[in-house]
């Protein structure tokens, strides 16, 4: 097995597993007594078949590997995902302005803004979006304990 094609081989195998899992959970769908001629299972099974065939083709005829980032950059993306999940979790509790200032500031910092600039960017983005979308356009945003 040529290691230059490893990514696509792994990707194809994951795809095959996904197709199998999809087919199994399609088979587990409970038929209702009011069913049409096709039923709720058939089309998902066809799709699982297409998914499986496409994945098999990717395993057998893989493209050359992309350039994957080094571990620190992967950790960077992982950290950003974590911050976004925390943001989604804390948004209703902290309120829009505070939560957004933190999240936007973090992203700006990690993209290479100096710390002070990142704080300013975070607050600016947050207050700017609040002013445009909430105050001017009347979109309802998450309200925190301080009312904004």
């Amino acid at each position, binding site marked *: 097995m040529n290691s230059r094609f490893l990514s696509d081989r792994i990707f194809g195998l994951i795809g095959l597993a996904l197709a199998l899992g999809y087919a199994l959970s399609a088979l587990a769908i409970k038929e209702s007594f009011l069913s049409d001629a096709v039923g709720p299972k058939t089309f998902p099974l066809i799709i699982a078949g297409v998914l499986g065939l496409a994945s098999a083709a990717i395993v057998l005829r893989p493209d050359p590997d992309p350039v994957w980032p080094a571990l620190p950059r992967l950790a960077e993306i992982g950290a950003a995902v974590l911050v976004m999940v925390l943001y989604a979790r804390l*948004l*209703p509790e902290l309120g829009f302005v505070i939560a957004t200032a933190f999240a936007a500031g973090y992203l700006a910092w990690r*993209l290479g803004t100096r710390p002070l600039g990142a704080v300013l960017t975070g607050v600016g983005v947050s207050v700017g979006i609040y002013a445009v979308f909430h105050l001017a356009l009347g979109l309802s945003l998450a309200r925190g304990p301080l009312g904004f």
Partner: protein
Amino acid sequence: MDTIANLADGFAIALTWQNLGLALLGAFLGTIIGALPGLGPSNGVAILIPLAFSLGLGATPALILLTSVYYGAMYGGRISSILLNIPGDEPAMMTCLDGHPMAQKGMAGEALSLSGIASFVGSIVATFGLILLAPQLVKIALLFGPAEYFALFTLAFATLGGVSSTNQAKSAFAAALGIGLAMVGVDTQTGVPRFTFGEVHLYDGIDFLVAIVGLFALSEVFLFLEHRHGSSDAEGKKMTIGRIVPPLKMIKDTSGAMARSTGIGFLAGVLPGAGASLGSFLAYALEKKISDKDGTFGKGDPRGLAAPEAGNNAAAGGALVPMLALGVPGSGTTAVLLAVLLSLNITPGPLLFTQNPDVVWGLIAALFIANFMLLALNIPMVGMFTRILMVPPRVLMPIVAMVSFVGIYGISGSSFDLYVMIGFGVLGWVLRKLDVPLVPIILGTLLGNAMESNLRRAITISDGDWSVLFGSPVSLVLWAVALAGFVLPIVVGKVIKARMHGARQTAQAEEMDATD
């Protein structure tokens, strides 16, 4: 004559102060979005859909706003191609070939305004083409039954990878993944939950807007984080614009190129599997063959700039024909427009023309208006738009991320949708690394349910006889085109793709030689 009366009605709808204001706002925002690094027509419109939706605009005004953004982004995309030699999206690749050399010769202003005019010609003519062709296609589409529709959906997925696709297995994978995601939720025909794993939030299915914003917008943020690409490409480059009105002689010299390219581009847009990239490539290749007698193409020939710009804008207009008349988009950007329509509860297709003529003709009138506004905005204000290239991604990307969150949170007010969106963002980043196209996933989530219900209706009508899918001449033709559209790229796709990229690389190599 019907057409003219309809169009007049359309203008009556579009020409209110509110709609004109929205068109102007959309055209302005769109040009900015197109010019910004890392945002283009698809992801720019994607992050604005949930906003237009939660602001409670009516169907026609929202549609006018978002199509103006879409057209504006097509105009704005050329700015970075010409000034920085960085194409904003694939169709803009050909614009770099002669546009950037013109800018290097100190003719940046002329290049920008000439390409603005070429874009205008391309899209105005294509809009006329849309008016003439779409009603004819509707007449054919009215003959379609569920079996034909099922074949048509299959055709759309089979040809979506396009003639320039390199790996059809990955396109098929993406389409199946998208359709598979659409199956999540309560089955509309029997009421049983599917693939919900007991999670109540999933009973309504996965909102396609959540998928689109995650896949298109958030994955872009992750790409920039991966490379810590925080500074602007324009930093440290001097950008002198020069005169911003092209000499009349230049317009006259390029008019032939514009006319030919508009025709080719429009055809490429209407045909399934071609799209704007191929439209601009064919336009450039043909113009080179016809006009390049002194070997000036690739060195800043205005005709080499006008041709691909007219071609790709005409293709963008042409792509609206199958989207509006059949409800089946043939390209990524029209897939996003389909999402706009569906989120406004409008189902495009032949019935749209008979049941909601106000939406169709209001939209077409809006396209005309947006084009004139874009021309008016783009020529005098191009200097201002070029400054937008200086916005560094380290400021822009946090804004993109936060506006995405605001839009999705505004629809449902639930953190669950935000988690799903983040998941799609990560998925989008991984798939982009692996060169898996994202557009079939989007189209799958949009059309999956309609595709299934047409299949089930067809089989139910025929009492369980599956051969009905191949039972009429129309469906046989559709299946044949689908098959050809899927197999052809495997045979010839590599050649065409290589030529498209080859043209750009030779040009870059020559530029390197020239500067050495």
